C-alpha cells in the first residue's frame, strides 16, 4: 500500500467535519493541500519505513548468483585468516616445542596465554572460548552457504566447486574440534531461531569423524586437481585427499592412509630443493604447497598476516622486526629442548628459528624466536607470509609412517622419509627397526614441520594421555629448572608446568555451559 501524505490528507475530506458546509471551508482545504505539497514530504507511504543498511547487503537475498556464491565462499576463506592467527596457541605453544618470552613487566596475562603454556587453563580461559566461538562462526557461514546452494541459481560448476571447498573447510574445522575438545556439537544446517540453538547437544566423537570423512569423500569427487592461474589458492582435490589421509592416520587406519596419500603422489607435487624457499613470500603456492592460508602484505587492504609481531622477542626494539622501536609479543618462543634436537648441519634450523639477536646497542640477547615467518616487509605490522596448512613433505612423512606401521621400514618407507632428510642436507637413514623408524619419522616431523601447528596433534595421536603427561611434565621440569628465557627473579607459581591427563582435552568454555546448562563438560574441569 502506497499512500502519499497528500492523499492521507485528502481522506480528511471525507470526515463529516469537513463535509458540513461552506465555500471558504473548501478554500481552506485546498490551501492545506497545497501547503502539504510545499511541506514536501512527497511520498510518505509504507516504504518510508523500509530502511536497509545502505553500506551492506542483506543476507536473505544473497547467495543467488555465481558472483554471490563465489563471494560467500571467498568470505569463508577470509575467515580462515583469523582462525590461523591464533591456531598456534592450541597446537604448538601448548606443546614442548615452544614456550614464552617471560614478561617481567606485565604480570596480568595469567588467565590467558600463560595459562596455556603452563597448563593452568580451565573452563574460563578466554582463548578456548574464542577458539570455540570462532570455529562455529565460520561453521554458520559454511552451513548457510551449503544450504543456500540448493536453491541458488548459480551455475552447476560454481556450485560443485563451492560445495567441495566448503566441505573440506568444514571437515578441517570439525577435525580440529574433535581432537581438541572431544565430543562436540555437530551443526550442519543454519539455525533458524535462538531457541533452536539451545536444543543442540554434544555428539560422540565417532559421529564427528563420520561427518568429517563423509565431507572429505564428497569433496574429493567435486574438486579439481588444480585451478587456472587466476584461481590459485583454492582448495584442491590434493588438499582433500591429504586431509583424508591425515584423519585416517589420526585414527590409525594405515592402509586407508596409504590409499589416500598415494593418490596425492600423482598430482604433480614435489619438494622444493631449498627448504628456505618454502617460506619465502616471494615464492608462494609452489610445487610443495598443497594448501596454504593466503595472506597478502605490502598494502593496507587488511588481508595481511603479522605472525612475527606475535612471535618476536619482547622489547627487541626494532632489532628483530626492522622498524624503529618495534617490539614483539614474546609468544611461541622455541624452547631450549626443541632447539637441542637439531642434528648438526640441518639447514632447517636457521630457517625455522634464531637462537637470539643482536640488540640495537650491539649486545647479544639470547632470546630465541621463530624465524619461519620473519621476512622483510615495508609496512609496519603488515607481513606477506602465508601460513602452510598442508605441505608435500607432510604427505611424504605421513606415508612413510603409515607404511612402517603396516609393513615395517620398507625401502618405500625409507624413500619418503629420506627425501625429506636429504633436502635438509642430512644423511639418509637406514637400518632402523620398526620402532626406531617410528621414532625417527616423528622426530623428522617435529623438525621439518616445526611451528606449523602439528606438534600437539602428533603427541595426541601417538601417545596415551598418561604418556603425554609424563612427557610434558619432564619437559616442564626442565623449563622450571632452566627456563628458555630469563624470568627477572620472579619465581614460577607452584602449579606452573604441571600437566594432568584430563588436560589432553580442552574444556568446553564455561560461558557455553552457563548459557546452556544442558551442555556437558569434559571430565576434570
Amino acid at each position, binding site marked *: 500500500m502506497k499512500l502519499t501524505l497528500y492523499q492521507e490528507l485528502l481522506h480528511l475530506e471525507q470526515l463529516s467535519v469537513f463535509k458540513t458546509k461552506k465555500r471558504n471551508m473548501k478554500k481552506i482545504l485546498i490551501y492545506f493541500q497545497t501547503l502539504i505539497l510545499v511541506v514536501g514530504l512527497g511520498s510518505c507511504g509504507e516504504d518510508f519505513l523500509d530502511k536497509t*543498511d545502505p553500506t551492506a547487503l542483506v543476507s536473505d537475498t544473497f547467495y543467488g548468483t555465481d558472483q554471490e556464491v563465489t563471494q560467500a565462499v571467498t568470505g569463508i576463506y577470509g575467515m580462515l585468516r583469523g582462525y590461523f592467527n591464533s591456531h598456534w596457541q592450541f597446537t604448538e605453544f601448548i606443546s614442548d616445542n615452544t614456550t614464552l618470552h617471560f614478561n617481567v613487566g606485565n604480570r596480568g596475562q595469567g588467565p590467558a596465554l600463560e595459562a596455556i603454556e603452563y597448563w593452568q587453563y580451565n573452563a574460563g580461559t578466554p582463548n578456548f572460548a574464542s577458539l570455540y566461538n570462532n570455529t562455529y562462526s565460520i561453521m554458520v557461514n559454511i552451513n548457510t552457504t551449503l544450504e543456500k546452494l540448493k536453491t541458488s541459481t548459480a551455475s552447476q560448476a560454481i556450485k560443485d566447486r563451492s560445495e567441495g571447498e566448503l566441505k573440506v573447510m568444514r571437515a578441517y574445522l570439525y577435525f580440529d574440534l574433535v581432537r581438541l575438545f572431544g565430543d562436540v556439537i555437530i551443526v550442519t544446517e543454519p539455525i533458524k531461531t535462538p531457541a533452536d*540453538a539451545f536444543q543442540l547437544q554434544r555428539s560422540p566423537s565417532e559421529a564427528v569423524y563420520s561427518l568429517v570423512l563423509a565431507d572429505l569423500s564428497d569433496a574429493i569427487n567435486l574438486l579439481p586437481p588444480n585451478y587456472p592461474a587466476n584461481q590459485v589458492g583454492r582448495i584442491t582435490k590434493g588438499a582433500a585427499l591429504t586431509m583424508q589421509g591425515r584423519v585416517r592416520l589420526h585414527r590409525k587406519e594405515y592402509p586407508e592412509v596409504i590409499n589416500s596419500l598415494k593418490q596425492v603422489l600423482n598430482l604433480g607435487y614435489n619438494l622444493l630443493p631449498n627448504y628456505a624457499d618454502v617460506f619465502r613470500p616471494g615464492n608462494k603456492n609452489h610445487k610443495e604447497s598443497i594448501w596454504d592460508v593466503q*595472506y597478502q602484505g605490502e598494502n593496507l587492504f587488511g588481508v595481511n598476516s603479522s605472525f612475527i609481531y606475535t612471535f618476536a622477542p619482547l622489547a627487541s626494539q626494532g632489532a628483530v622486526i626492522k622498524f624503529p622501536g618495534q617490539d614483539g609479543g614474546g609468544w611461541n618462543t622455541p624452547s631450549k629442548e626443541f632447539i637441542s634436537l637439531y642434528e648438526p648441519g640441518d639447514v632447517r634450523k636457521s630457517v625455522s628459528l634464531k637462537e637470539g639477536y643482536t640488540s640495537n646497542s650491539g649486545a647479544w640477547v639470547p632470546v630465541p624466536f621463530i624465524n619461519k615467518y620473519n621476512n622483510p616487509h615495508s609496512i609496519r605490522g603488515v607481513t606477506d607470509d602465508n601460513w602452510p596448512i598442508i605441505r608435500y613433505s607432510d604427505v611424504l612423512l605421513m606415508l612413510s609412517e603409515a607404511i612402517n606401521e603396516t609393513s615395517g621400514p620398507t625401502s618405500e618407507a625409507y624413500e619418503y622419509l629420506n627425501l625429506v632428510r636429504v633436502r635438509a642436507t642430512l644423511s639418509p637413514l637406514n637400518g632402523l627397526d620398526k620402532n626406531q623408524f617410528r621414532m625417527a619419522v616423528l622426530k623428522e616431523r617435529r623438525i621439518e614441520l616445526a611451528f606449523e601447528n602439528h606438534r600437539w596433534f602428533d603427541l595426541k595421536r601417538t601417545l596415551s594421555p598418561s604418556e603425554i603427561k609424563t612427557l610434558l611434565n619432564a619437559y616442564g621440569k626442565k623449563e622450571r629448572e632452566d627456563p628458555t628465557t630469563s624470568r627477572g627473579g620472579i619465581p614460577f607459581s607452584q602449579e606452573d608446568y604441571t600437566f594432568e591427563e584430563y588436560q589432553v582435552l580442552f574444556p568446553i568454555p564455561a560461558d557455553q555451559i552457563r548459557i546452556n546448562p544442558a551442555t556437558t563438560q569434559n571430565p576434570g574441569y
Partner: protein
Amino acid sequence: MKEQFQTKVKTRLIGLMLLMLFTTLTALAQSANVSGTVKDETGESVPGATVVVKGTQTGTVTDLDGNFSIKAAPGDILVVSFIGYSAREITVQSGQTVYDISLEDSMSDLSEVVVVGYGSQRKADITSAVSVINMDAIGNVPTTNVSRLLQGQAAGVEVRQQSGRPGEEMQIRIRGIGSLGAGSQPLYVVDGFPIGNSLGQNVNPADIETITVLKDAASTSIYGARGSNGVVLITTKNAKEGKVGLEVIVNQGVTNLPDNRRTKMMNGVEFATFKNESFVDRIRYFSKREPLIEEIPLEFRFPEQTAISTDWFNEILNQNAKFQNVNATLTAGKGDIRSLVSVGYVNQEGAIIKTDFDRFNVRANVDGKINEFLTMGVNLSASHSRENFAPTDGRSAIIGRALWADPRYPVYKEDGTFNPYIGGTGGVFGTANVVQELYETTRDLNTNNLMSNAFLEVSFLKNFKFRTVLNANLTGSKQKEFRPSTLAGGGFNQPPPREATLMERTVETMNISADQLLSYSKTIQKHRIDALLGFSAQEENTSFLQGNGNEFASDKTKSLNAAVRTTSTSGEFGWSLLAYFARANYAYNDKYLFSATFRREGSSRFGANNKYGNFPAFSAGWRLSEENFFPKTSWITDLKLRGSYGITGNNAIGNYSSQSVMRASNYVFAGKIATGQILSNFSNSFLGWEQSQQTDIGLDLSLFENKVILTAEYYNRITNNMLLSVEMPSVSGFTQSLDNVGKVKNIGLELGIDFRTKVSRVNLRTNLNLTFNRNEVLELRGGADAIWSGSFYGSYNVSKVGRPMAMLYGYKMMGIFQTDEEVKNWPTQDGAIPGTYKYFDATGDGVISYDQRDMIEIGNPHPAMLLGWTLGGDVGGFDFNILFTGAFNYDMMRNIEATTMNMDGVFNILQSGVNRFRSADMPGDGRGATSNTWKWQRESNSRYVYDASHVWLRNITLGYSLPLNVIKFKTRLFFSGENLFLFTDYPGTNPDVSTGGGINIGRDDEAYPVPRTFTLGATISF
C-alpha cells in the same frame, strides 16, 4: 517567574475572552471613572490583568502598559487579578481616582499553562505525572549544558554528573532504568521537535523558557515508541506580549579542584620504599631468608635518597581555569509580530590542562498573526562549538596514568623539555608523560548545529485549529586527533619515538520531522472538551567519512596528505518513523477530568513482521476540593487525585538491528584480493517493540493559598518484551542476538514539597523532592537465567530474576590470608599465599575457581533514595538560592583500586598502600594485599565495593539587585559557587561517576574530576 506563563497563546485568549465578556457587561452605574496602573513587584507593568468591581459584573482589562479605567463608586472594592499573581482587593476611596496597584507573585496558580506533548494544558486539568522545572528557582548556574538545569529539580528525575569534562551532558534517567538492552535515556523534545535521546552540547541554557518532564505513560504515550524512558520538553523563550527589551547577562569565573577531591598516591620516597620492601618481602617469603643488600635493585636500595617526587595528578590540573559566559537577548513584543533575537557565548576551561569547551549561539524566534485565522512562526537557532578534549577516563587513559605513573620521574628534563618516558625501570610500567601528552596532542571536536522549527496555524469553524509543523535539525561535526611521534605509546612500556598518528572524521546528521495537527476545543456549559488528531513523519540520516594517517615526515604537518600511510572509511545509517495519534481531554465542571491518548507508530528499526505498535493511555483526575461535600477549610486550597495507565515503547536499539547483513571478509587468490562476504549477525525478523506498561497514582494538594504545595506520586512500570541482546550458544554461529525477552519492574514513590512564605520583608521558598525507586527483574529468557556484563578484572553487573537489574557481582572478600596454614585450611585458592585476599567459596565445592563460578552479589548500584533540595529567598535587593542534591544507600565498585592497589610494583599505589600486608607480623590494615604475587587481588571482588551515599552542595547563588533610583535600568549582580561541597564517605572523587557504559553501571575507573566553579556576574535589563 510569572512571566513565563503570560505569553502563552491560551493566556491571551483567556484575556481576550474576559475582555469581551466584561466590556459588554460593563454596568452603567452612577459611578465616577477610576483609573490606574497595575504593576508587578519589580515595577513592570502588567498588561491583561482583570479589574472587577466586587459583587458586580463590572470589569475591565489592563492595556499593554498596564493601565485601566473603570467606573466605580467610593466604597466599591476593586478585585485585580492575573494569572501567576495573588488577587488583590482595593477599596475605592472618595476623592482618589488614580490607583497604582502592585500585584504579588502567587505561589502557584492552577490556571497556569503547562507545555505537554503536542500542545499545552491548564495545570489544574492535568491528570498525568508531569514536572515543570522552575527556571527562576535554578538561579544563574555556571553551566554549559542544559542537562545541568534538571539537577535536583524534580522528583523521579535522576541527574548524574558522571564527569567534570567541560560541556559534558549529564546522564538523565526518569523513573529508573527500564531497559537492559535498549537505552534508558529520555526523549528530548525542543519546541515540539523530538530530537532524540541526547540533547548534545549545542542548546544554550540561557535560551530556555521552560522545561517540562513527562514521567508517566499518560503523558508520554503520545510519543509512542520513544516514550518509555520519559520525555523532556524544552521550550525556548519568545518576547513577552507588549514588551520590548534587551537583557544582557555577563558571567565570569574560575574553576578548580579542591584538595579533598584528589586521589592521594605515594610520593617518590614512599614509592621507592614500597618497591624496596617488595623485593625484601619476596625474598623473605619465597626463599625464607633475609635479602642481601645487592639483591635489591640500585634504584630502590636507598629509598630515602630518592631525589624526585612528582605528583602527576596535580601536574595535570588547571587550578585557575576560566569560565566565561555572555548572553544578550533582544525582545520585541509589540504589535502582531513578536520576535526574540539572542546571542550567547560560553567558554569553559577544564580542571585538566589543555581541555576546554566553547560555544557560540544565535537564535531568532519569531511568530505572529497574519490575519484573524492564520498564525505563523519560526524558531531558528544556530551554534558552533569547539572542544579540546582528552581521553581522560579509565586506568589506561590520562587520569588513570596520572595516578599510577612512577613518581620518581620529573615532568621536565634539565634542559626544560618534556621528559618523554616515565617509569619503565625496576619493573615499573613505562608510560607517556601525561603532561606532555596533554600539551602535544591535538584533539579537537568542532560541531555546527542548525535547528529550525516552523509552523503555520489556521483557526477555523470557531473551535478548530490546524497546525502544520516542519522541523529540521542539521548537525555537522569535524573531529581531529593527532598524536605526535615524540610521545611514548598509549599502552604500557612503549618508549618514544613512536609513529605519529592522525585521525580526521566528519559526521553529518540531518533529522527532519513534519507534524500535521488538528485540534478541537469547546466548552459547553460545564463540559470542556479538547481533542487532537495528528500525523507525524520523521526521518534521520547520518553519514561519516573518516581518514587515518600513520607515520609523518614531521610532527608539524598534521594533515592526511603528509602521512606515509593513509586509510579511509565511510558509512551511512538512518531511521524513519510514521505515526498517527489522537488525544481527547474531557473535563466536567472542573471537577472530573478524563484524558485518553492513542498512538500507532511504525519504525524502520523493527523486523518486517513487527513494524507497527499501538500505544494507548488513559488517565483521570478528581478535584475533591471542588466538591460540595468537601469541607471548606481555610487551609486546603486545592486537592486533586489522579491516576493513569498506559503503554509506551522503546526503540533505542540502533538501526537495522533486525536484519542480517553481509560484511566483507576478503581473501587472496593468485596474489589478487578477492572480495568475500560473510554473515554479520543473527537475523531476527520478529524483532518488535519493547513495551512499558505504567500505572501512576498521584495526589496534588495545595494548602494555605498555594503557600504549600504537596505532590505525591506512586508508579509501577513494567517493561515487557525487553529488547535484549541475548546470549546464544555459540554453536549457532553467533554469541548473541537481539530478541524481545524478559520483563523488568520499576516501582517508585515521588514526593515533592513546595513551600513559600513571607516573614516580614523576607520572602522564603523551598522545594524538596524525594525519589524512591525499586527495580526488579521479573523474567529473563528462562527462569534461572542471568545476564552478565563486564569483565573479570573490571567489574561484573549481573541481572537475575527476582533481583534488581545489573547488581554488582564478584568474589566476596573475607579478609586476608595471614599464614600458609590459613591458606591450607581454606577452600583451595590456587596460587594463594599469605597476604592475598581470602575469597568466599560460594559454590561450597571446596575450590575457589578462577572464573565466575564463585562470584556472588556484592553490591547494589541503585540508590534507594534521591534528594533534591532548593532553598531560596530574597529581602530588599538581596536574593539567594541554594541547591543540594543527594543519593543514598547504593554501592560503587571502585575498580580503579584494582590498579592503584595492585601490589605488583608495576604501578604507583595509593598512599594507604603503606598499610598493606607484609607478613603475619606486619598484617597492615587488612585492606591491602601482599606484594609477593599478583593473583587473588585484582579480580572483581567486594574489597573494592563502597557505599557511595552522598550529598552535594551543588550551588549557592547570591544576588543583589541595584535600586532603580541608582541606575536607570534593572541590574542584578550575583555570585555563584557550583559543586561546592561533597559530603560522603566514598573514597572516590565523584560518587556519580560511571565509567562502565551501558548497563555496566556503578563502576568507578576514575573519570574526569568534577571541579568547583566560582563565578561573578551581572544581569542588566534595558
